[in-house]
């Protein structure tokens, strides 16, 4: 069968498919070269050290320090995710509903810190929250405290700074979803007798859920890998998984020891997504339709 006998619309469809594949090819190549191959290589290293070995995994599953770090990391990730949602939802709502120039101003307030280095922001929190810091001085001046509060060099400091750093990752997907929700729907709800709260709960909230899930996912995954903030603001006691990875490289001087920790973390995250995906389908999670 020669090409000329094929239905022209089918031919068009095929050509379009080929073109799409071609367009995606550079991105796929980059991902394979920079993500798939190195991660695969690291994963292979985690079970190979002059022969097949499960030593690195044995250590993770038998030594308590690893479990404590995993538990702490997931706890902090959960706290940060919920806090960013609590703080980010109203901000995104306001940005999506405010008129120019207010919406621009709100978004600028979210984005400006976002363009500042994470390291700088972590240090800024240190300056603000330490014993002789601005926050403690104000509290004491207004007679609210007599002793400086311990707000940094602990888990609290880590959570505060991480929430601040990751807030844009919650606000932006929320904002983009909320912007697409037609205003008329709320008007329609009102014309059918729904009060503002009722309409919000039954119309706006469900429609904004894809943004919520996207934001939750982004923030949760990013927190799991945080390094600088717990290192600077954790006082040495907040040992998150990323720090365990770096300690493993130092202590064992083997990429395998560190990558085993990474592989376990990856598996945990995938398991969480699989579980969440049973409740909310993946395509919805990624913000499609």
């Amino acid at each position, binding site marked *: 069968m020669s090409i000329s006998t094929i239905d022209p619309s089918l031919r068009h469809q095929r050509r379009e498919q080929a073109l799409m594949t071609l367009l995606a090819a550079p991105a796929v190549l980059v991902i394979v070269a920079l993500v798939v191959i190195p991660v695969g290589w690291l994963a292979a290293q985690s079970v190979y050290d002059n022969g097949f070995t499960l030593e690195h995994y044995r250590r993770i599953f038998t*030594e*308590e320090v690893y479990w404590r770090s995993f538990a702490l990391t997931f706890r902090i990730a959960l706290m940060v995710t919920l806090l960013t949602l609590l703080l980010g939802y109203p901000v995104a709502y306001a940005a999506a509903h405010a008129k120019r120039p207010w919406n621009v101003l709100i978004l600028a307030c979210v984005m400006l810190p976002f363009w500042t280095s994470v390291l700088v922001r972590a240090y800024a929190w240190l300056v603000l929250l*330490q*014993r002789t810091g601005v926050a403690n001085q104000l509290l004491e001046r207004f007679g609210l405290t007599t002793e400086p509060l*311990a707000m940094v060099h602990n888990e609290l400091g880590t959570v505060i700074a991480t929430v601040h750093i990751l807030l844009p990752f919650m606000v932006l997907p929320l904002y983009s979803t909320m912007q697409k929700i037609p205003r008329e729907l709320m008007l329609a709800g009102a014309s059918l007798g729904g009060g503002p709260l009722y309409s919000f709960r039954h119309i706006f909230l469900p429609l904004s859920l894809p943004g919520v899930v996207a934001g939750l996912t982004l923030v949760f995954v990013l927190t799991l890998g945080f390094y600088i903030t717990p290192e600077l603001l954790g006082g040495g006691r907040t*040992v998150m998984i990323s720090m365990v990875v770096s300690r493993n490289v130092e202590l064992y001087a083997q990429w395998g020891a560190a990558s085993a920790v990474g592989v376990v973390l990856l598996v945990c995250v995938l398991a969480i997504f699989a579980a969440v995906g049973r409740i909310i389908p993946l395509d919805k999670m990624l913000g499609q339709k």
Partner: protein
Amino acid sequence: MLGSAMAAEQIMFVSQGGAYQKAQTIAILDPSAKKLGITINQDSVPDAWPIMRSQVATGKPTWDVVDVATNFCLRGGEQGIVEKLDFSKIPNAAAMPAEYRSDYSVAYEFYSSVLGYNLKKFPDAASAPKSWADFWDVKKFPGRRSLRNHPLATLEAALMADGVAADKLYPLDVDRAFKKLEEIKPNITVWWTSGAQSAQLLNDGEVDMVMAWNGRISALAKEGAKVTYTYNQGILQSTSLCVLKGAPNLPTAIKFLNEAVDPVHQANLPLHIDYGPANPKAYDTKVISEARVKELPSAPENAKVQTLMSYAWWTSPAGEAAEKRWLQFMQK
């Protein structure tokens, strides 16, 4: 052939960056390069050890000489990552005490883990903390404290606080050290991870007492901060030079090693930074003023009241086990 003979010899030298690498460039690297007629290329890495390993593992290292904490040179020797040195080609090291060198390393400069404190909190020298026992005594010396988030020197301090004599420290009684550390743990506000952090904590009044490197505290004091330290019971530590196994410019690297511990170059270093020369002959060159000598950790008078860290112990299996146990201690 003419081309290859004319080509200048060169090496890649790797250190830890910052003010320290700047100081050694002026004091040691530039004069050595000039005297030997070689080019010294520089790189700086805060944590060289994992990279040393992977460089050698690739079979084609690009680094020649590395300036790292001595234990990494020793461990590198053990694991075949560092070249064995032929000391007949490093005559300048002959004058150095045997403890300052090993088959794989030659000491390069000294610093000390000392007890530093805030002068506003302890204005009176007579009633200021002077020993690790004082640091541990939270009743007699109330205040906030910070220790390094690392077992090296911290275990030594804990044992001295528990009454172990400085000359009886090694082999370290690891169990006893960790037990003593558990005791102080609730009173440690911050476990610092970088030298800059340790200085900042003391400067900002986050803590009143800290175990830190002498150079960090003296730098603060010079800037006018009300802080000071004591060399008493300090733990004298060194970085050493070692050469990567299969280094591309091995003969030049050895020539440089010898030049780097030349007494005059060594004596130049403390003129630019608060670290002591590793070659004791540097103190005979008269390059360092007498007032300056008194401030340096490796000066004979100061060395006397301190303990020389045993890197051999820290690279032994017991030492490595103690290092691995640290994370467990921190996480509990």
